């Protein structure tokens, strides 16, 4: 018995060592932060023409957040950014020149076709313009083609050393720009069609646009090693042309806090409730149904747990019925889409945050939860799991294990504290500035001196 225990201790110590070594190796790969580089100012200026699709506050998801984070970081890395958006948004930022592909004289002729594709599936958080109306209509593929048609004209007009395109929506425009200026093209893959559909029915049109964009690019940037694998395996891109740059988080991209707001959800906690939080689009990709299956198991063991599902999407109604049908209709709350301080407060109040995504290229939400001081459980099928090795990792389909991990974190303040204690160190390495530095390095390789 005692011998078995001894072996167990040895194994435990060894696993700590492995985890520590992995952490060290992972972080060693990242460049030091900008302020520690005395010669950063001496670098040559690069001019980047970046094609994007959305930009905060006119965004419906992580793509816009990443666009903001990276653009600002590139500006700090001596890159003059011209950021192109397909439509006219009333935007102005100090670190980039914002332009629109909506010039009258571009004369992009696109035949509009009926298409079932909608950005980020169907949801209550469409990108809304200043008039409160959705900016992109239902015919997304036509929008993408119109944008692509404008790419070449913009490249002729805007001087640049390198072209950069965020996700398939902008790949066509990036490729067209490259054919006009012969400058190197970087395709940044934030998500693939396989992720968005939860590996379900892939739309061939979207896949073809993605594939062509990646093959036209001189370098493909993937948001995780997981995504890099997909780019290689499913899109046939030469591995030597694929780089990994993790997403990040910082003050500007995290949910905006209001330091003067009252702690509204504290009332729930004071009454003895524990809160397990899901926050994301309610679509198949994000695995909210797996969250509910785990919730049933946890709810049976602990009458004090509430499950809060923040977000909206095409599965909202299905999930509400599912919760009711599973007998936990009174234990699951659906507050809908939250932003800014409301979202921050949900993160900060939760006892555990769960991201059970079926297929997640990266997944910024757990970083937001960590920033708010909350322990996180992440599916093994998400890219962010590579970047936060101290988090609790489960397979999205294993609701039994997911429930067990939730329960353990809920009942053990020590376990919670142990994870939270590591948050700050991990987050300090996951900044947009670091991601920007890495991309600047890629640009240096691609742009001839």
């Amino acid at each position, binding site marked *: 018995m005692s011998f078995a225990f001894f072996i167990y201790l040895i194994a435990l110590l060894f696993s700590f060592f492995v985890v520590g070594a992995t952490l060290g190796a992972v972080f060693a790969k990242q460049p030091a932060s900008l302020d520690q580089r005395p010669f950063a100012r001496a670098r040559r200026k690069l001019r980047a023409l970046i094609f994007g699709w959305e930009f905060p506050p006119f965004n419906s998801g992580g793509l816009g957040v990443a666009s903001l984070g990276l653009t600002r970081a590139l500006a700090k890395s001596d890159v003059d950014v011209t950021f192109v958006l397909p439509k006219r948004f009333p935007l102005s930022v100090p670190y980039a020149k914002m332009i629109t592909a909506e010039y009258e004289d571009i004369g992009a002729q696109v035949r509009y076709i009926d298409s079932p594709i909608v950005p980020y599936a169907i949801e209550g958080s469409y990108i809304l313009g200043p008039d409160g109306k959705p900016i992109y209509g239902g015919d997304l593929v036509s929008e993408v083609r119109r944008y692509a048609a404008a790419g070449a004209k913009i490249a002729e007009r805007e001087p640049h050393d390198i072209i950069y395109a965020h996700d398939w929506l902008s790949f066509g425009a990036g490729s067209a720009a490259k054919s006009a200026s012969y400058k190197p093209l970087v395709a940044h893959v934030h998500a693939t069609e396989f992720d968005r559909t939860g590996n379900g029915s892939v739309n061939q049109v979207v896949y073809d646009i993605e594939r062509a964009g990646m093959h036209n690019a001189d370098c493909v940037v993937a948001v995780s090693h997981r995504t890099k694998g997909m780019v290689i395996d499913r899109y046939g891109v030469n591995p030597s042309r694929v780089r990994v740059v993790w997403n990040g988080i910082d003050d500007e991209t995290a949910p905006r806090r209001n330091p003067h707001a009252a702690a509204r959800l504290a009332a729930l906690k004071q009454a*003895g409730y524990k809160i397990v939080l899901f926050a994301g689009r309610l679509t198949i990709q994000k695995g909210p149904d797996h969250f509910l299956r785990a919730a049933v198991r946890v709810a049976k063991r602990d009458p004090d747990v509430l499950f809060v599902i923040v977000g909206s999407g095409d599965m909202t109604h299905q999930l509400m019925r599912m919760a*009711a049908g599973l007998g936990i209709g009174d234990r699951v709350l659906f507050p809908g889409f939250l932003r800014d301080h409301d979202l921050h407060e*949900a993160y900060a109040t939760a006892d555990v945050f769960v991201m059970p995504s079926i297929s997640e290229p990266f997944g910024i939400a757990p970083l937001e939860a960590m920033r708010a001081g909350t322990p996180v459980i992440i599916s093994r099928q998400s890219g962010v799991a590579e970047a936060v090795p101290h988090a609790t990792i489960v397979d999205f389909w294993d609701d039994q294990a997911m429930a067990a991990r939730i329960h353990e974190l809920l009942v053990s303040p020590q376990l919670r504290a142990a994870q939270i204690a590591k948050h700050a160190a991990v987050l300090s390495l996951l900044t947009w500035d670091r991601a920007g530095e890495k991309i600047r390095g890629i640009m240096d390789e691609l742009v001839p001196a």
Partner: protein
Amino acid sequence: MKSVCLYLQIHQPYRVKRYGLFDIGRDHAYFDGNEENDLNNRRVLRKVAEKSYLPTARLLAKLLKRHQAFRFAVSFSGIALEQLEQDAPEAITLFQDMVRTGRLEILGETYYHSLAFFFSRQEFERQVRKHTELVERLFGVTPRVFRNTELSYTNALGSWADERGYLGILAEGWDPILHGRSPNYVYRPPGSRRTKLLLKNYRLSDDIAFRFSSREWEGWPLTTGKYGQWMGAEGGDTVNLFMDYETFGEHQWEDTGIFHFLEALPGELLQNPSLAFMTPSLVIAMHQDRDTVDVPGVTTWADTDRDLTAWLGNELQHAAIGTLYGLEDRVQATNDEQLLEDWRRLQTSDHFYYMCTKWAADGDVHAYFSPYGTPYEAHNTFMHALKDLEWRLRQHERARVRAGEPALV
């Protein structure tokens, strides 16, 4: 002599205002919506009072005065009476005057227009008692005939009414329970010693309540002459016309001519010497009951299904109502009057009706009656308010534990 038995239902729920996650534990006033929308209960009541309650009451009072042989019945939910007392007291006065003529009968029901009978017999009894007390206070009469929420009926309810000594109980004259018999007779529940069953003639009732202004209907336009002929042609002892009071002026707007129709109807029918207006109690007194009607399941007057599926047809509704009644013992244990009142107001059947997801022809009716955008929004709002109610229960229970008392008495 054939009876014409007209009964009108008056009910207004306390709708739950816009209520969400951040309100739990902080805002316990679920029913005090004050925006300019249909979740503002006082606003709705004043609007309906203006369009229906008051003009119809004035007209009915006039008709009682004009025709000494005109009689009818009204059933009010307790919470409708409360709201009328507060925001349309003139309506209460008008009804008090009409009751004094002896030709307006007030029926019994649950105070909160609830489905308590199907979930908690003891809560049901308490609500019926509370309703009886209010009717006695306002009108000085004790209801002798009972009708349950949305005309829901089952054998067990008939037995209950019999035990409580009611003369009669109302139900839908739905074909599957009649087995080819006419609704136009007095019946009795199985094993009943005293209580009789009055069944709604849904064809003639709905000709007024639902079809009156429908131009697709071959009976349109409906005149009192035409309607009088149909009434005269009916066989049996009594034609029971049961409908919402708001048919007059709210479901059928004034410009459809519904008030002219109502004004002319008694005179028209009274021209026929074989017809006589009777209240439910009089119908039961005058006519021998013909047969037993066996209703082992539940019938209601709603939708084309005539069952409880408008309120209890999907998981959302079951989750909501199941959770609500599951709190009964804990609510009673608090001795907190306000908490008990809020719990009861949440029992009002309308909350569950708003959560109905049947989207055939019935769905249109549900959408018409719902102040929420979707059944899911209705469910979500309700569940958040219910979570707050549970939060309040927890406060009581934690205080008891701190005081060293058992959590539940």
